[in-house]
């Protein structure tokens, strides 16, 4: 319970008006940065880090934390409103968020998303506060085999979801193949580049997803305009508090889903190198699996927004933990925060807790306060944001395309990425029309590179033996879970066939 006492001192430190002011400013800036597609937590924090140099350490740190949180909330807005997933972890949210927006329920989707982000981050902060040390030690034992097992689970949650198996297979294989283009991880040889230097940088998944979903969506809307005009649907939706109360009701109804997604997100975020993205996909997959109406997913199921959002905010909190406690940043954004910590003369690690408790605990208490500020801010602004959807199509469509260009270029200043947006926009439109499921493509693309790297590093460690995944104490159970998830649909299918056969025999014998 000493943690509570320390947490209280942390809050005390924060209670200074100027510090709260900086926190607020940080959240606003973070929101702005998070809304710009392609720029998200990492770039946003990196850009705004120099701004904080002039402040005293605790103010600077809480402002940076505010930016970090604001950015996490901001990504939700562009995914739902414009179907432009500017952040990797916002892709899963978009699967159901965008259909909800098209049905005129954008305000509901966003309110639910914000609330659930808050709860997710809160749960993660509580876990952070009380279990910092044991979790950190677990993070230390994490190596490539564990990483591979976790990623395999992420894939497993997507198996058996979505349409015709042949088409899903093509999409997953294509996604993986796209992720292999470029220089080989282990040997450094160029793969699938066909002699082109431009292709050696590989395909970053953000331009591809922006193309598939952002531009693809614009084209899809265009093709439907003679039937359905989006502005008219959204105009019919009323603005007001009832969306927020409805979102609250839904959050309470699905409370356990939110809590499990948050815990899942926290644990995944805490593992170095993994982060919010697999967490959001896993949460989405699990939500669909455990839902009573799985067929509603992809067409506007609110749980499809709540689960990934809770997971990715919790993961965002979790990824800071190894940085602060061990000095090992679990994600690129945590690395930048760590740079900030160094800048003010502190050394993250176990000694920081002992030597500079006010600093550490103000940071931890700022996690709570920043979230409260962010969620209140977002909820008040939501109706205004939903209003944006009422912009006339002739104005909105070009703006979305421009946002897609911005998002694509912002990643790595490459014109190839901008062209990829166009190419995949057309491809995405055609695939959608032909009923090819896009989700497996995206998941394979996003997680493909890290999965292959983890697999090959593990095999190097074990000199080629696949048993390494089962021999290690942490990856063992994880690998078993992953295999179960892959074979579960097969087992279920087999069960159902046997059950039907039994029933047929019984009714046949009964005659």
């Amino acid at each position, binding site marked *: 319970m000493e943690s509570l006492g320390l947490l209280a001192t942390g809050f005390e430190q924060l209670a200074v008006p100027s510090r709260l002011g900086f926190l607020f400013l940080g959240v606003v800036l973070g929101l702005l940065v998070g809304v710009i597609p392609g720029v998200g937590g990492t770039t946003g924090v990196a850009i705004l880090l120099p701004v904080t140099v002039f402040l005293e350490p605790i103010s600077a740190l809480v402002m940076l934390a505010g930016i970090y949180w604001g950015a996490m909330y901001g990504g939700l807005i562009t995914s739902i409103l414009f179907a432009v997933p500017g952040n990797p972890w916002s892709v899963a949210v978009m699967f159901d968020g965008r259909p909800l927006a098209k049905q005129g329920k954008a305000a509901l989707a966003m309110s639910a998303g914000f609330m659930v982000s808050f709860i997710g981050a809160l749960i993660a902060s509580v876990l952070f506060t009380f279990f910092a040390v044991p979790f950190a030690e677990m993070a230390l034992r994490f190596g490539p085999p564990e990483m591979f097992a976790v990623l395999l689970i992420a894939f497993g949650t997507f198996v058996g979801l979505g349409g015709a198996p042949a088409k899903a297979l093509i999409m997953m294989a294509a996604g993986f193949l796209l992720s292999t283009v470029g220089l080989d991880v282990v040997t450094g040889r160029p793969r699938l580049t066909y002699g082109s230097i431009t292709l050696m940088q590989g395909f970053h998944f953000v331009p591809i997803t922006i193309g598939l979903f952002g531009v693809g969506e614009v084209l899809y809307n265009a093709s439907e305009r003679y039937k359905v005009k989006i502005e008219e649907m959204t105009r019919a939706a009323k603005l007001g508090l009832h969306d927020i109360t409805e979102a609250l009701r839904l959050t309470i109804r699905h409370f356990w889903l939110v809590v499990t997604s948050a815990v899942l997100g926290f644990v995944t975020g805490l593992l170095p190198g993994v982060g919010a993205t697999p967490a959001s996909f896993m949460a989405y997959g699990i939500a669909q699996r455990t839902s009573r109406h799985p067929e509603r997913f992809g067409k506007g199921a609110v749980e499809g927004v709540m689960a990934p959002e809770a997971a990715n905010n919790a993961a965002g909190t979790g990824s800071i933990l190894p940085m602060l406690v061990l000095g090992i940043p679990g994600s690129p954004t945590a690395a930048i925060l760590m740079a900030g910590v160094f800048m003010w003369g502190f050394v993250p690690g176990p000694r920081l807790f002992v030597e500079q408790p006010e600093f550490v605990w103000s940071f931890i208490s700022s996690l709570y306060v920043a979230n409260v500020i962010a969620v209140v801010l977002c909820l008040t602004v939501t109706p205004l944001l939903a209003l944006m959807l009422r912009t006339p199509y002739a104005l909105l469509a070009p703006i979305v395309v421009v946002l897609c260009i911005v998002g694509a270029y912002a990643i790595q200043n490459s014109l190839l990425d901008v062209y990829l947006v*166009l190419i995949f926009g057309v491809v995405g439109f055609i*695939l959608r029309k032909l009923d090819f499921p896009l989700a497996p493509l995206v998941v394979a693309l996003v997680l493909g590179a890290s999965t292959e790297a983890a697999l090959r590093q593990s095999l190097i460690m074990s000199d080629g033996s696949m048993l390494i995944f089962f021999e290690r104490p942490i990856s063992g159970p994880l690998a078993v879970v992953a295999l179960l998830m892959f074979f579960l649909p097969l087992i279920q299918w087999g069960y159902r066939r046997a059950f039907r056969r039994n029933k047929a025999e019984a009714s046949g014998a009964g005659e």
Partner: protein
Amino acid sequence: MTRLRESITLKSVEIGASVVFLLLGIFVIREGIRLGPGWGDTGPQPGFFPFSLAVLLSIGAVGVFLSALKIRETRPFFEAMEEVADLLKVGIPAAVAIIVIPWLGLYITSGVYVGLFSKWYGRFRWYESLAAAVLVPLALYFLLRYGFNIPMPMSLWYSKGLLPV
């Protein structure tokens, strides 16, 4: 025109797509063989994943091809002429806007694109479109260049020092 549209059936596009995927698969299989498709002594060789994934891709493509052959209905891919018209009206300006980015830069392109498109497709009045054409790049400039200093493609005139965008 309608006859042409109706002759492009969903079935034919699906068959076409599966053939494209199959060709891609074969392409990558060749590359995979070049890189070494097997399992070396320290795990998979660089070509292993491309090869096996391309094999899976090809299998899937053949599957889709065969099931597409069985489709009986002749539903057209583009369900109505208006659909084609709207697609072209939205798609071509978007494509042009993206293609000219290296020459005109983001800010000029966005202004011209938003202005012209809203005037032509949305039939806005000229001063409304002009307002949009000025405000959108201005907002972008303020946020991206002035505010967060995120580099964006700039026009040719910028590299010659003639214009600030």
